[in-house]
């Protein structure tokens, strides 16, 4: 099944995309294995069709969307974004998707909703046991979730999203470390309190709720000042908010980013 027409987006970077081979064989998707090469080899463990995404919680019109509906909800765009992994490497990835804000509008969030929680698919029978407390949970503040850069991706390189990249629908938040982008999402919940994400549970001293790309705040076990762009030989300097500071810095004005890491 194709995705239909895809429009280019002014929010895309002009940097050259990373090779498709690297983007589809070097993945962190622990449900399909903890080695980077595992997810591409274990794609049979996740069936992306049929698929339903529930949008629920503090909303006036909770409902479920089939993946076919989701793809046709609003016109799809290609968004070429930088992706910076917390481990110190980065890529440039041509996603296909639509703003999360468009989906949130459909369900009409209530005034008490302050945060958005993302629940990834987990099947104990076929997927990795242990390592993290499954299912994988991520979260955003509602204003972050509504930001025009925040994307629900359903495609990659102009085609349907491959399983190893989080099929059939995943979150992409380009100014945050890659792990914030929950993969294979089955539920989006609007909630009042800040969600406790999978990585916060696993290592509260190492992974905070915000996880904004920040060269000045090191991971306790490694520096975040530089990164290796996959395909390049020497390291490059990591940019504040992964180079999206102009668009997103205002979301955090007045906040101590060392404390809210």
């Amino acid at each position: 099944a194709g995705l239909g027409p895809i429009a280019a987006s002014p929010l895309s970077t002009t940097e050259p995309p990373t090779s498709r081979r690297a983007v589809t064989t070097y993945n962190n998707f622990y449900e399909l294995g903890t080695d980077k090469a595992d997810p591409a080899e274990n794609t049979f463990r996740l069936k992306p069709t049929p698929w339903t995404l529930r949008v629920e919680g503090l909303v006036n019109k909770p409902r479920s969307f089939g993946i076919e509906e989701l793809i046709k909800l609003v016109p799809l765009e290609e968004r070429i974004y930088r992706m910076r992994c917390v481990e110190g490497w980065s890529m440039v990835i041509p996603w296909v998707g639509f703003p999360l804000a468009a989906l949130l509008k459909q369900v009409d969030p209530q005034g008490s909703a302050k945060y958005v929680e993302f629940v990834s698919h987990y099947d104990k029978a076929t997927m990795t046991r242990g390592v993290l407390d499954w299912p994988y949970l991520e979260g955003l503040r509602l204003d972050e979730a509504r930001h025009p850069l925040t994307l629900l991706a359903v495609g990659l390189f102009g085609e349907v999203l491959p399983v190893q990249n989080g099929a059939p629908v995943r979150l992409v938040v380009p100014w945050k470390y890659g792990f914030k982008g929950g993969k294979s999402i089955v539920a989006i919940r609007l909630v009042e309190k800040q969600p406790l994400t999978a990585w916060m549970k696993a290592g509260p001293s190492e992974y905070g709720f915000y996880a904004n790309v920040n060269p000045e705040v090191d991971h306790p076990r490694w520096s975040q000042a530089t990164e290796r762009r996959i395909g390049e030989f020497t390291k490059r300097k990591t940019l504040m908010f992964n180079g999206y500071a102009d668009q997103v810095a205002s979301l955090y004005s007045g906040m101590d980013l060392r404390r809210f890491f």
Partner: protein
Amino acid sequence: MMINPGSTHLAAIKAALFAACLLPAFLLWRGFELDTLGANPIEAITRGTGDWTLRFLLITLAVTPLRKLTGWHWVVRLRRMLGLFAFAYGTAHLLTYLWLDQFFDWYAIARDILKRPFITVGFAALVLMAPLAATSSNAAIRRLGGRRWQALHRAIYPIAVLGCVHFWWLVKKDITEPLIYTAITAALLGIRAWWREQERRKQLAGGYLPQPPRLTGKVIRIFAK
């Protein structure tokens, strides 16, 4: 099974072992040339050289237990080469980090070594390995004397432990692999402790003292010549 190979056989065994020890390095080099190391070849080389440093350390530590359990005393004569390969892969691991990973950014490197415990620990392990490698020759053994040489080379025990800690602390979450290395290290060190304890008990039960009694006073000549 060949129990005690002659010198010709041993030379052949050593040559084959030398080639086998070089194989991981060759495969990494070839993988880099042919671009088959995945999307992040520098990470793959760093991981590969690190893995093999730890593996060679454990293989070196396995020599004595193997000898005791099988009675193949000749395997001890392979130990020096195995230990030196551990040091060589460790050096390659450090060079990969300094050159390919950090590109000789000395400020970043110094900060890394001081600020990040897993790098500090790995660096300490390699520094400790250097005097062992430097005193691996027969001449050095003679110069130091067997007892002192042996005491120095027992540093391989803490080095292996540091190697495991280094691996454990760098892993983001899935600790399966470091756990396996740590279990093997524990077994190899544990069996030594066990043997030492057995030896001590045997000596106590046998009623003889581990050290010859210190003689004081007058020496009485028993056998007249």
